[in-house]
């Protein structure tokens, strides 16, 4: 417990440049932790620490290839996340009339800068309509690539389930969000 053996003290004595970098790293880590903002590499490592509740209904995305539901969990974790997360972003933009809600964050973060800065950042960070409209075609090709087969139709549906007695039961009100034919 001798303070001269402490890492930061030794670091300060042996290499002041490294000490500055490590101190800055610690300072940024504390800052982002307090703000509860995830910013690479200063993440808030609070995985599965919040209390959760069971929703009455749960919406699940299901992928249909040539009108047959596929088991998306058979894909690798990365491919499954890739399909579901890009689809969720597409769905959010589609429902929002192709307006990216991140634009408001851009507006807020650039409020002290001249207008051209906002325009530049918004153009780089936010999804534009013409980009979003290409998504269905890309997903079609992506699914063909990872499933190693030619596909005629892809369809993604949001299906609602009720959770009763430790089981999920589908409610018959699924809605088709994305469909692409080739």
């Amino acid at each position, binding site marked *: 417990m001798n303070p001269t053996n402490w890492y930061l003290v030794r670091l300060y004595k042996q290499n002041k440049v490294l000490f500055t970098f490590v101190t800055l790293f610690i300072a940024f*880590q504390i800052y982002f932790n307090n703000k509860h*903002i*995830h910013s690479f590499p200063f993440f808030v490592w609070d995985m599965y*620490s919040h209390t959760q509740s069971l929703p009455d209904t749960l919406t699940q995305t299901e992928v249909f290839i040539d009108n047959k539901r596929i*088991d998306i*969990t058979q894909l*690798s974790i990365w491919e499954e996340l890739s399909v579901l997360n890009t689809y969720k972003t597409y769905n959010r933009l589609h429902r929002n009339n192709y307006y990216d809600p991140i634009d408001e964050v851009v507006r807020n973060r650039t409020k002290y800068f001249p207008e051209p800065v906002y325009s530049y950042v918004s153009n780089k*960070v936010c*999804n534009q309509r013409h980009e979003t409209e290409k998504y269905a075609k*890309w997903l079609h090709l992506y699914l063909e690539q990872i499933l190693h087969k030619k596909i005629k139709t892809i369809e993604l549906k949001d299906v609602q389930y009720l959770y009763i007695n430790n089981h999920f039961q589908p409610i018959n009100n699924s809605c088709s969000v994305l469909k692409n034919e080739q």
Partner: protein
Amino acid sequence: MKALLNLNIQERNTFAKVLFGYFLILLIFRFQSGAFLIFQYQQPIKGFGIDWIFWLSACSGFPQYIIQHYWACVVVDSTVVILSIACFFSTKWRNLFCIALLIFFFLQRMTLETYACTHSKSTAALFIALLPFCFKSEKNFSLVSEFSRYFLLYILIISAFYKFYNGALLSPENFAVTLVNQHSDLATLNPQHISYSIASVLIAHPLYAGVAYIVLFLTQVIFVIGVFTRKYDTLLFVILLIFAVMTYLVMRIYNMDITVLGL
């Protein structure tokens, strides 16, 4: 792993071979899982989120450029692999190869995670684990290695702290609910999956789930020992491996990136 193999930090070359060997295995796994740029080529939807570093990347324009050009995807992907192999074999130029590897790995991960709309925390662990090899002098290598070790301890201890601070630890039935939400896809599509088979026992018996969550908490909080002594590093590394395997089996979470910091 240094402790497990009884390696002195000065036995840098052996340590480098272990770390870069493991890193190459992770790259093979990533390629096989489709987590390379060539598989994401031309994906049109961006997911920069609100992460400042992702925004800086977006403003520089490199993720948008790379994803639109197949040759750029191939160059970045293959350079990451070639530099990892170079770091494995070369002793003389390892620090320069490692700096280049960090740059290209950064380009790859920023672009990939942006266009998969998936931001992975564990990638940070890989960067911090590779950092010591960017230094040629033994003294700086040792100091940065020690920083990597403290970073791993921090991840696990703060994660345990939040489990207590955010109240999940004090709510015994919470983990069963977490598992229901976590595995809703497996429950409806693939209930035979090993993760769901284990989770369904815990879901059906919330008391067992509560105990499992406390064990998970203890597995993380025990890393406090590492702040005060290196004597138990072997034991902590074994616990880290068990933690990574169990989180995959029960939660279907991929934690092998974090394990690299324990090497």
